[in-house]
């Protein structure tokens, strides 16, 4: 099984955006997005205020990005009910990212796994360093503790989003990736901070890390990822040739 490089596309009111520490800063046109060098596409609605209109713009944006793609697609952002998943399903999503940073979503994840199967659900936790991060603030809950709480009640993979690293290009939070990987036997997706191919190589070499994400617009619109794949592969990384 190959390790994956995921294109994480963030959309604010249907417009592709860049974030820094989870705050949208720049908006981009989706015209130039080229998804073909990725292994999977994950689209997240990061709109601050969600409305029917923002959701419809989000879905139109996804349609456009996937128009010429034959890649697996996961969708997330504000999924709170079985009905939300059904709605997203109509847009060709294979998997659904459910934010499980707060315990209040645990019951819903159990329902979603029962209804759609474990392999359709990705659980996610937002964190800032060693602590979880929710509603714009760093909480007092330790990340390993939260990961431990959901180690049974979760989807097939756990997405760790480092808000601290998001948009910094400083590299993934390997210390925490390693910590969670060591203490729980759960497949991880690591997101936040990638700036160069060696970051991908280093993080993908952690056992149980199955995938890394980039939402950097430069990575989404150029041949960067194709070049990275060659470099990572040359250095012994187990990634697909695209």
């Amino acid at each position: 099984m190959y390790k994956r490089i995921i294109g994480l596309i963030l959309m604010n009111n249907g417009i592709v955006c860049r974030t820094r520490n989870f705050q949208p800063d720049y908006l981009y046109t989706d015209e130039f997005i080229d998804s073909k060098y990725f292994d999977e596409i994950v689209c997240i609605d990061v709109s601050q205020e969600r409305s029917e209109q923002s959701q419809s713009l989000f879905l139109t944006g996804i349609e456009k990005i996937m128009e010429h793609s034959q890649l697996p697609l996961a969708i997330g952002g504000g999924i709170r009910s079985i009905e939300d998943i059904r709605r997203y399903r109509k847009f060709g999503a294979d998997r659904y990212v459910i934010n499980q940073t707060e315990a209040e979503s645990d019951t819903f994840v159990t329902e979603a796994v029962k209804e759609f199967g474990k392999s359709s659900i990705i659980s996610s936790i937002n964190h800032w360093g060693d602590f979880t991060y929710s509603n714009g603030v760093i909480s007092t809950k330790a990340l390993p503790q939260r990961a431990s709480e959901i180690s049974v009640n979760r989807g097939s993979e756990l997405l760790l989003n480092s808000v601290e690293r998001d948009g910094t290009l400083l590299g993934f939070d390997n210390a925490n990736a390693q910590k969670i990987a060591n203490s729980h036997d759960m497949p991880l997706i690591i997101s936040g901070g990638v700036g160069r191919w060696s970051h991908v190589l280093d993080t993908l070499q952690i056992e149980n890390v199955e995938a890394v994400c980039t939402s950097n617009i430069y990575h989404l619109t150029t041949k960067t990822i194709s070049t990275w794949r060659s470099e990572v592969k040359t250095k012994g990384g187990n990634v697909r040739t695209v």
Partner: protein
Amino acid sequence: MEHRANKIVTILEVGFGNLPSLDRVLSQLSVGTKNVESVQDILEAEHLIIPGVGSFETAMNYLNQNDYGEALKKRALELKLPTLGICLGAQVMFGKGYEGAVMKGLSIFDGTVENLTSILAEKKSHTGWDKVKFRKDFLGISRNENIDFFFNHDYIMIPDNNNDISAECDFGGTFAVAIKKYNCFAVQFHPEKSQESGLTILRSFLGLINV
């Protein structure tokens, strides 16, 4: 010059399927879709695709409630019409499934469908891209080729007869991922999510290229 704009493929969705992604890719190939609404549709469709994600039990309950089981078997084994099962749609073609309640399948292929953790050394979902080793020519792909496809499943097909197997994967032990009998094809991977290699499978199944 190909006249493929008018091509229509019939779809029988089982379980909690993922029709839109298949629809999207078929429309990229300029192929239209029509859903199965009756037993007659199953017996008469030129090309039938059975996609599906979900549990074996739910899928078989759906097929049984609509009396589709016998028609599918007749289509595959007697009429020998082109039929492609994807993921759960492939698994239901087997004799027995162990996902949910133990359930009889369509028995187009002899064998069972079991949780991979009870058969293979790996103890997690088979999710992601994996290398597929083709033993036989299969829908536009030549024997001895190793090609990458996208998978997302916890249960695997275990055919009684090794000769039915066209391709295998290694995930803590080898298991069948492509199986063929007459014109009935079962694939565990998702051709609609596997870029060029998946398009080769779909084009070949639909007769859009000469292979």
